């Protein structure tokens, strides 16, 4: 009984608020504005099992990256049937910041698209938010067989946005249609492996999209048609010029 729960949340978090404090009805939130947040509360009833509920929400500011380890210092002090000496950690929460990574069929990243099945849809424009600001990454692209086609060394901008693209016709005749994968790796941590690894723990995030054979043509049809037509027209014109008209 009368145990005191104190949780310290780093000042970098915003929109901090209590969500469920059923077992700590007098819990209050203080701090922010340049100092760490603190949630304090007293348990309502004696803790008889290992579970008491107190939850809160918090938002990381833009620019903080994925896999950043945050520590929420949680301390519970109280007395009961057993004397407690000192302060014991109840738990430490590690927060995984989720980033986004999606494919689009336009350079402005307006049309999210997971299916590239037309001759005109020849580029997957990748875009995501929530990355560490101004940080170097490599994006690996893998075809339907898991073969690596492209590695794009690109950095996030000052607000943690990351973008990349894959132009399919480059891989005419060599890439396999099907489910392609775009996987982000942070420089200094890992580089895109030689072949696709599903849910690679070394990766930051990945996205998959379908690429059909129509999007990676075997041969540029337009160019071949123009070339052959031009050659035929040229030969015909030359031979016409050599015609000698004979007076009847």
């Amino acid at each position, binding site marked *: 009984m009368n145990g005191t729960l104190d949780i310290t949340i780093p000042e970098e978090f915003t929109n901090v608020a209590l969500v469920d404090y059923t077992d700590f009805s007098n819990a209050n939130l203080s701090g922010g504005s340049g100092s760490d947040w603190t949630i304090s509360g007293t348990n309502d009833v004696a803790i008889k099992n290992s579970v008491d509920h107190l939850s809160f929400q918090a938002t990381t500011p833009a620019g903080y990256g994925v896999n950043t380890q945050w520590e929420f210092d949680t301390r519970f002090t109280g007395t009961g049937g057993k004397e407690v000496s000192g302060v014991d950690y109840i738990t430490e929460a590690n927060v995984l910041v989720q980033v986004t990574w999606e494919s689009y069929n336009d350079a402005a990243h307006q049309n999210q698209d997971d299916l590239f099945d037309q001759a005109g849809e020849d580029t997957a424009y990748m875009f995501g938010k929530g990355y560490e600001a101004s940080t170097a990454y490599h994006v690996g692209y893998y075809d339907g067989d898991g*073969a690596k086609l492209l590695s794009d060394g690109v950095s996030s901008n000052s607000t943690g946005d990351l973008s990349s693209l894959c132009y399919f016709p480059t891989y005419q005749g060599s890439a396999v249609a099907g489910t392609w994968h775009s996987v982000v790796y942070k420089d200094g941590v890992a580089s895109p492996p*030689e072949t696709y690894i599903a849910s690679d723990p070394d990766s930051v995030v990945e996205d998959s999209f379908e690429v059909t054979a129509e999007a990676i043509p075997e041969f540029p049809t337009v160019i071949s048609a123009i070339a052959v037509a031009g050659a035929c027209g040229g*030969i015909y014109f030359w031979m016409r010029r050599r015609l000698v008209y004979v007076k009847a």
Partner: protein
Amino acid sequence: MSRLRIILVASLVILGVLVVFTVFRPMVSGEKYSKVSRESVIQREDEWIIQYSIVNREGKDMNYIINWSAGGETYSERVLLKDGGIFTYIQHVYPETVKEGKAHLSIHKGGEATPFEESTYYIRFD
């Protein structure tokens, strides 16, 4: 059909066959090799983009190692390219990453110590 027209038709047929063979069955010398192609260096307002492709004509799957260094930082990546495959490497270069205005790239084939492709880029941001 006049003889002239016959010659015209025959030449067009031969031309078409040659075009088809050029595309679908290109003549190769028989020599096995790897090469770097489609190399391009593009300048944008706030970055340079260096891009190239590796083509594997070794007759078998090949491993490559790409090494990139700029501004004291180094990066290395392994590539497994199947026979006849194409791999593209793109490196965006930003002002803060090229302190001395120089970047170096080398590509090693298999376990060879000597790179089969090596380039130094002198980059300046105005």
